[in-house]
């Protein structure tokens, strides 16, 4: 790859303290300024990288898209101390160098408040009477969680599952619960799972209700963990020892999407459209069809989510997720084994680790090294993760002769 990369538009806001603008105002102003300077629009971008430290874990890139244009392109949220902005720029640069993007947008933004050089911690309470004052982009005078609906995770994913039920007659609490029965059963074969205990359908449905229809056994636990991978080019692989080459697993597709604009997408996150788009792209890039998959590790943060993803990943017929679990399609002995690791529900979900941990699971099966839980003869697998805000990453791995 010796083609150069060029800057065609660039912009900055004046730097000062802004009491009348929020982080999104600043980021949007800079982003739109650069796009206008280049004479292009957000619809011309193939990639977005957003660098921000103070709000690094809040999906800053997706929040910018929700102000200036949701086109479903991959979004990378970048944090690298004071090198954050330049690192965001490098992400866009690398995407073009890799041939995955022709045009990209990098935004660096920060709103530091009155931290001072030593990074002070919070405002002191003044002891004055507190009066309702509208604040933020919705002019809220007090916290809205639980008063104007719920946006916490269990309730959000419950509403997503219920929306699937609204659109497809007959999908029931029982079918959502069957997902958890499956994954907890699968986990008993996985020594790396946080929980390795089976539960009956009655136990799952009768457990403490968190957010209907998700009972506590249908919610992933919090926990700790890490996962890591070493990747290499084909050319370099050829120079490595035979044993390394024998155990190498090919990445046939690596796809990242964000949530494209849909009516109501700011009211309730749509986790379906971006998953379908990522899946279709992954199938196209890899040349693999859903029926070729020997196993899938998908993002069952809540049992209701997994059911929707059978449909989104096209593992079952459109609208047929409920029927599919009824006939045991996703069980380890079924048509397409889903979450034989136990899934997030039982294996656990240390947030940053999961995306590589499910690659570990599929790769281990493809190498024939999964012990008691090995899916016999596994040659092709898919991994899927979703981050709310949103981002979806899908990988297709294959064991092919080198």
């Amino acid at each position, binding site marked *: 790859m010796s083609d150069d990369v060029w800057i065609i538009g660039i912009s900055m806001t004046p730097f000062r303290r802004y009491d009348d603008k929020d982080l999104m105002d600043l980021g949007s102003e800079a982003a739109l300024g650069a796009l206008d300077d280049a004479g292009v629009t957000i619809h011309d971008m193939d990639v977005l990288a957003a660098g921000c430290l103070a709000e690094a874990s809040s999906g800053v890139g997706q929040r910018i898209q929700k102000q200036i244009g949701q086109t479903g392109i991959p979004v990378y949220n970048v944090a690298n101390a004071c090198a954050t902005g330049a690192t965001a720029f490098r992400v866009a640069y690398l995407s073009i160098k890799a041939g995955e993007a022709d045009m990209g947008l990098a935004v660096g933004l920060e709103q530091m408040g009155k931290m001072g050089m030593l990074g002070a911690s919070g405002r002191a309470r003044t002891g004055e*009477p507190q009066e309702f004052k509208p604040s933020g982009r919705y002019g*809220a005078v007090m916290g809205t969680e639980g008063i*104007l609906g719920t946006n916490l995770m*269990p309730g959000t994913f419950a509403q997503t599952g*219920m929306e699937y039920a*609204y659109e497809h007659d007959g999908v029931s609490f029982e079918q959502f619960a069957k997902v958890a029965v499956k994954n907890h059963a699968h986990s008993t074969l996985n020594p790396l799972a946080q929980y390795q205990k089976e539960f009956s359908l009655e136990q799952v449905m009768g457990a403490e209700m*968190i957010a209907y229809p998700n009972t506590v056994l249908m919610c992933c636990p919090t926990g700790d963990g890490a996962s890591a991978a070493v990747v290499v080019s084909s050319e370099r692989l050829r120079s490595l020892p035979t044993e390394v080459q024998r155990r190498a697993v090919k990445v046939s597709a690596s796809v990242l999407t964000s949530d494209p604009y849909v009516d109501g*997408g700011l009211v309730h996150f749509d986790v379906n459209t971006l998953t379908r788009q990522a899946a279709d792209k992954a199938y196209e890039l890899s040349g693999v069809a859903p029926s070729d998959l020997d196993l899938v590790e998908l993002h069952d943060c809540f049992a209701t989510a997994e059911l929707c993803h059978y449909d989104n990943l096209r593992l079952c017929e459109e609208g047929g997720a409920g029927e599919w679990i009824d006939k045991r399609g996703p069980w380890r002995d079924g048509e397409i084994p889903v979450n034989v690791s136990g899934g997030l529900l039982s294996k656990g979900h240390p947030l940053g680790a999961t995306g590589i941990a499910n690659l570990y699971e599929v790769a281990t099966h493809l190498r024939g090294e999964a012990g008691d839980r090995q899916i016999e003869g596994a040659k092709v697998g898919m991994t899927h993760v979703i981050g709310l805000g949103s981002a979806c990453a899908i990988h297709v791995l294959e064991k092919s002769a080198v």
Partner: protein
Amino acid sequence: MAEQVPMVDYLAIDGDHPHLVANACVKCGATYFDRRNACASCGARSFERRDLADTGVVRAFTIVYRAAPGVPAPFASAVIDLDGGGKVKANLIDVEPTPDHLRLGMPVKLATFVAGTDDLGNEAVAFGFRPS
């Protein structure tokens, strides 16, 4: 003197017909409840205020039993398809929050309630949807 203020600025409580007001893109008509920099659908940068209907149907709901601190539970949260366009998330009110009493697709109507009071006696008015 104590007064009633809307909990969020997209709720209009003046007069006897409380309703939601959205920012509508002048170019493509997409509606939003938040303050906007541009349209997330078409990229246009101008908006006008648009009144939304106060009736709709439930397209999704959940019943939250384990709620955030200070929030009375159980409560039902729902995504409502508003008649004539727009979606909103709110609680289902004036109905028992149990699976037997709630139905996907049920028709609902907006109603307001007082959600809190500040130190000066001002009341924050919130909205929910009740079965109609």
